[in-house]
């Protein structure tokens, strides 16, 4: 379904989505984050990149897996804690972040399927927004098979055309969301369609950064596991969690029990984000750590994204959102690292 929605009417659409939890980019001080909103005016579609991607809604940093309760007498009670059944919609999803969800789908859809992730994923409608102007100086989606108007992983794509949006839905979920307020949408004119094409074409040209010949890099990486390259490149790495926590495609987690009371024993089993960049991530219970230093951890990040993931799922595990570059406190730049791999003797 392809329609036109004026910016003035946009809040009316949201107001009509009474049965949904509505999320979207909200500005707080100098940063934008995806937040649940009640008031459509809080939504700021004129946003630069959010710190965290919508991954934080579909794959929250803390997810309760089960509740446990063991009274003195009797058997321990264990209760699975699946996410609530709700209908969610996220507005203002960047095409790179939506593509990232399709990559994480591949992982969590593997048998037997991750119930927690999949439930949140299926009950969420993603409404994308074309990046007419790239939201970060480090965007490089076009190098990874994406584009500022890619529709992968989206139910709807909105594109800004002056004072209106061109709204295009591709899935049943998307069409349903538009039907919830059918009277606010108008049919697009021929000119609108032409303008849309123009904006999409222009948007690609505005992406400044790129990685060339990625497949060559993937091939090269295969022989670089033991290379001193990783020592050199990781010298300044801090072993913090920024690059991976902020990455829309990183999905590693830890599971731990949080005790709420010790007698009777009561608590929750939770999964929380974890990252290959933390020293304890790979520590065995014997104390041995197969990735003892930062060079092996940087290697892991690059190889997982540009080699192992390619072997397993035939795709790169990076969509070029640029967050890890912009937010790295010591300026480790994934594009540069890849370019150096290519030239490495």
């Amino acid at each position, binding site marked *: 379904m392809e329609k036109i929605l004026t910016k003035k009417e946009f809040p009316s659409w949201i107001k009509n989505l009474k049965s949904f939890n509505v999320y979207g980019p909200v500005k707080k001080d100098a940063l934008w984050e995806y937040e649940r909103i009640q008031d459509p005016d809080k939504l700021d579609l004129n946003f630069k990149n959010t710190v965290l991607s919508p991954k934080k809604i579909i794959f929250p940093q803390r997810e309760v897996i089960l509740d446990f309760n063991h009274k003195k007498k009797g058997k321990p009670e264990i209760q699975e804690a699946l996410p609530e059944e709700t209908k969610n919609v996220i507005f203002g999803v960047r095409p790179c972040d939506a593509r990232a969800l399709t990559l994480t789908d591949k992982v969590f859809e593997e048998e037997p399927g991750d119930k927690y992730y999949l439930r949140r994923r299926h009950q969420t409608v993603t409404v994308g927004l074309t990046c007419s102007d790239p939201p970060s100086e480090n965007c490089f989606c076009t190098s990874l098979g994406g584009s500022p108007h890619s529709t992968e992983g989206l139910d709807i794509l909105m594109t800004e055309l002056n004072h209106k949006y061109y709204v295009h839905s591709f899935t049943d979920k998307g069409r349903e969301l538009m039907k919830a307020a059918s009277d606010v949408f108008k049919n697009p004119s021929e000119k609108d369609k032409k303008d849309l094409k123009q904006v999409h074409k222009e948007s690609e040209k505005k992406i400044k950064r790129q990685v060339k010949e990625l497949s060559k890099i993937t091939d090269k990486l295969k022989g670089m596991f033991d290379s001193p390259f990783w020592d050199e490149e990781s010298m*300044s790495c801090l072993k913090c969690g920024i690059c991976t926590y902020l990455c829309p495609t990183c999905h590693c987690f830890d599971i731990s029990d949080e005790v709420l009371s010790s007698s009777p024993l009561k608590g929750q089993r939770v999964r929380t984000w974890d990252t290959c960049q933390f020293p304890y991530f790979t520590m065995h219970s*014997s104390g041995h750590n197969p990735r003892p230093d930062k060079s092996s951890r940087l290697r892991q990040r690059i190889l997982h994204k540009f080699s192992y993931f390619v072997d397993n799922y035939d795709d790169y595990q990076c969509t070029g959102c640029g967050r890890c570059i912009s937010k790295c406190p010591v300026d480790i730049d994934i594009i540069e690292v890849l370019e150096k791999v290519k030239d490495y003797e």
Partner: protein
Amino acid sequence: MVEMEQLQKEAKEILKQGKVKFVIGYSKGSQNLTATPVFIKKPEHTSRLIWDPTCVQNLVKFIVDDKQKQSREKKPDERPVGIVVKGCDSRAINVLIQEKFIDRDDVYILGLSCEELGVVDEKKIAQKLEGKKIEKIEFAKKNNLIVSTKDGEKKIPVKDVLADRCLECKAHFPVIYDQLFGEETEREVKEPYKSIKKTESQSPKKRWDFWKEQLEKCIRCYACRSICPMCYCDECVADSINMAVTAETTAEEKAQKIKWIERSPALSENIGYHLIRAIHLAGRCIDCGECERACPVDIPLRLLNKKLEKAAHELFDYDVGFDHKKPSLISSFKDEDPEDFIR
């Protein structure tokens, strides 16, 4: 004035003579505004070294890194590491020596004086540009930044975008060094604790609301801890495995280990982490501002540390990192130390 060529020359010399195993300094960043840390092993690469107000990082963390790496190696290279430091960073070296984490001989210090300037705050620059994207940024003569955006070039005086810590800096030049570049300029600092003035004047309720909102944002990426030169513990209470596990550690011991803080980024846990960290930095934080700069969600961590710095100064007449021969605040006492808070 610091002559960049002089710095490069000296670095080249000590590498040539084999006095140091490598030199840690700054070089031009790739895309981001700030300089990037560089590790130079060969004399012929010293021309990569730069010095300008974008050299924000405190490189002393990498001394800590190297020391920890050495402890894992069978035959470590024990020659000193050459390191480029600003005034604030040099005080971190003093603290590490005071605490006996390193020896004076472990480092060969190339000290740079900030003279009348300091380093820039990226957030302030972003504010000046009112959300416009930076396409190119250059440090030009006469202490100006030339920033290009889609609306053309804009000249921003460095003075207008200096980091808060530089405006409150107690010594703009290294207090410990082997070679000094630039002058030990005097500069009057009227309000060394200006940034905490606002929160200090607020009611406890207001302060609580402020910190609650701030700490709720924390995603526990631990960048603040990772970047801090004073955070060098092998075990940290903030980690879920907060013990050094060896092959001899029994399952029992592992199971009995108390977990002080859960991994969940819940407010209670975040507060636990930040209070512990702040207290552990009392009398140790040298205010290089790196934790705050690294934080991806803009939590004003400096305020916590500044408050403790002020307490150390007012209660114990202790200023951090000025003399490595003096005992550290926590490991010493004087008869006249206040004790009315111990009850």
